[in-house]
């Protein structure tokens, strides 16, 4: 077995063992931290699909995270007040059922990713970075100035949405749901990465001209990757909103986009488990350094700078060494 596979299995084991230990020790706060790490990991896996596999440096993934969050917020707030989301041309009621909310979140963030991607992918390189950033800001300002769903104050959902057969308000059960979704997302992403589409996408990242020469259309490959990537990040947004039972325009802020990217870099870019390791490390740092000093972002900045300048490949590369690559 490859060293990285062993590490990946170990990471999943730790991620599952820590909250189970916390359950024994009666530390619900640690379960919540682990849930947060798992949700951030899903968001990171989403961005990593575009960034690591397709080489698309998107600084606007907070948009999809926020759309996922607001999908949950809007549906659940209507269910809370027994009112319809829209009444014309067809009546759509709110819902507090998690599976329906997830599907809607994936659908909406996917559609938005398709639109934003179709426009942004007309450009490349540094333009692409700035344009995705700008589209993220556009939605951020829209959410702030749109008064229907709370505007700047956001929306509070009083009861966590339900999942058939489970008590979602129990921290360990909600963690279980998020963990299962993370495993599902990882499985899907690893399958897509090995499919002919994934191979073509990796090819386009490495050499666009050659892919064109063998009849592929890079724009189409990138757009599909960007859409899938946005949809996964949207799912994470819906879960994050359910974790906090609160959504606000902060989910759309560009710092969120930056942080999702930081998960990937801390763990290791382009690796399946990079964002998982990175998100767990981020939560750990936030918890440990945040306890040391209220200015813990200085240390985070210094660590990030160190990783970018001297340890490209992140924590996974430090442990298992360079990837056996076919580049």
């Amino acid at each position, binding site marked *: 077995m490859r060293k990285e596979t062993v590490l990946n299995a170990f990471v999943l084991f730790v991620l599952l063992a820590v909250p189970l230990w916390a359950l024994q020790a009666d530390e619900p706060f640690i379960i919540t931290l682990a849930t947060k790490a798992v949700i951030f990991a899903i968001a990171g896996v989403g961005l990593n699909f575009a960034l690591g596999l397709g080489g698309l440096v998107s600084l606007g993934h907070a948009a999809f995270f926020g759309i996922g969050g607001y999908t949950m917020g809007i549906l659940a707030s209507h269910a809370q007040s027994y009112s319809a989301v829209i009444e014309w041309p067809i009546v759509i009621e709110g819902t507090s059922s998690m599976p329906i909310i997830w599907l809607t979140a994936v659908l909406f963030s996917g559609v938005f990713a398709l639109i934003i991607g179709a426009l942004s992918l007309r450009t490349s390189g540094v333009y692409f970075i700035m344009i995705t950033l700008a589209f993220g800001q556009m939605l951020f300002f829209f959410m702030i100035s749109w008064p229907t769903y709370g505007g700047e104050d956001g929306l509070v959902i009083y009861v966590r949405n339900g999942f058939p057969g489970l008590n979602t308000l129990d921290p360990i059960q909600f963690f279980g749901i998020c963990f299962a979704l993370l495993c599902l997302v990882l499985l899907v992403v690893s399958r897509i990465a090995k499919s002919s589409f994934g191979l073509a996408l990796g090819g386009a990242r490495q050499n666009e001209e050659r892919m064109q020469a063998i009849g592929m259309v890079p724009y189409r490959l990138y757009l599909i990757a960007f859409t899938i990537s946005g949809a996964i990040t949207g799912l994470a947004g819906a879960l994050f909103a359910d974790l906090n039972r609160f959504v606000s325009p902060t989910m759309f802020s560009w710092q969120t986009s930056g942080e999702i990217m930081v998960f990937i870099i801390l763990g290791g870019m382009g690796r399946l488990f990079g964002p998982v390791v990175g998100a767990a490390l981020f939560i750990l740092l936030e918890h440990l350094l945040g306890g040391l000093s209220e200015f813990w972002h200085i240390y*985070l900045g210094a660590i990030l*700078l160190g990783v970018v300048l001297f340890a490209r490949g992140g924590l996974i590369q430090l442990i298992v060494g360079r990837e056996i690559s076919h580049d």
Partner: protein
Amino acid sequence: MSLILLIEQVLNGLQFGVMLFLMAAGLTLIFGVMGLINLAHGSFYMIGAFAAAATAAATGSFLLALVASLVAAAAAGAIVEMTVIRRLYTRDHLDQVLATFALILIFSEGTRWMFGSFPLFLEIPEYLSGPIRLPFGIEYPQYRLAIIAVGLIVAGGLFALIAKTRIGIQIRAGESDREMIAALGVDISKLYTFVFALGAALAGIAGALIGAIQSVQVGMGEPVLILAFVVIVIGGIGSIKGALLGALLVGLTDTLAGFLLPKAFGLIMDAAAATSVGSSLASMSIYILMAGVLLFKPTGLFGST
């Protein structure tokens, strides 16, 4: 709707645009010459504002405060260039984005640590406070008019520096062929430090000038930075002319959309709905402008393909 109000809004848009130009000019110069995308540019804006507020509080002189903002931002720019940025020129854009994102975290939290979380205030000097009477009975704040003037003078100076001076020739040469001017005996690393410090100084003075209208606080730089990105995407990355045109377009669009759209919707729906629809659309207007420009010219108005 009176014409006078409209003219005032146009002046406000102009003032906003001129400030955006000071930010965007530095960004686009740094990208044009060094090929670097710098997210930490907003931090220099913040450093300029804080340096000005601290100096004004200590000495009471607004002019000294402006000088301090230039010096502090340029010094911060030069130090950062020599310690961190220099290592990033050969890296890809992703590394540049991440490293400069890390710099933002360090600068913002560092400033919060030094000055605390509460906003500082920078007073408009006595001789510039109060309105000025313009032709046609328009009254306009003197200070805002002064900002437009200072901005235009700095813009003119920048164009002269790049078009007429020896260092300007080197900058333009650096944009078109880095290796060649190094081979011709220009100390390229000194030139890079100079360009970076110049861009930082422009951002710093913009921060100080705006700091007197708004409050001086941590995180003030990033919203402006993102607008400056929109400006240079519209104008074409690397083009100073494009940055000027883009900045004025964005400044005017943002101000006039916020003013006109709620009124326009007021003609077809009731007042409360018009205000909410109008202001939501207005907040998105510059991004719609950007998307529109990109549909027709993916490399911006003055960008090279």
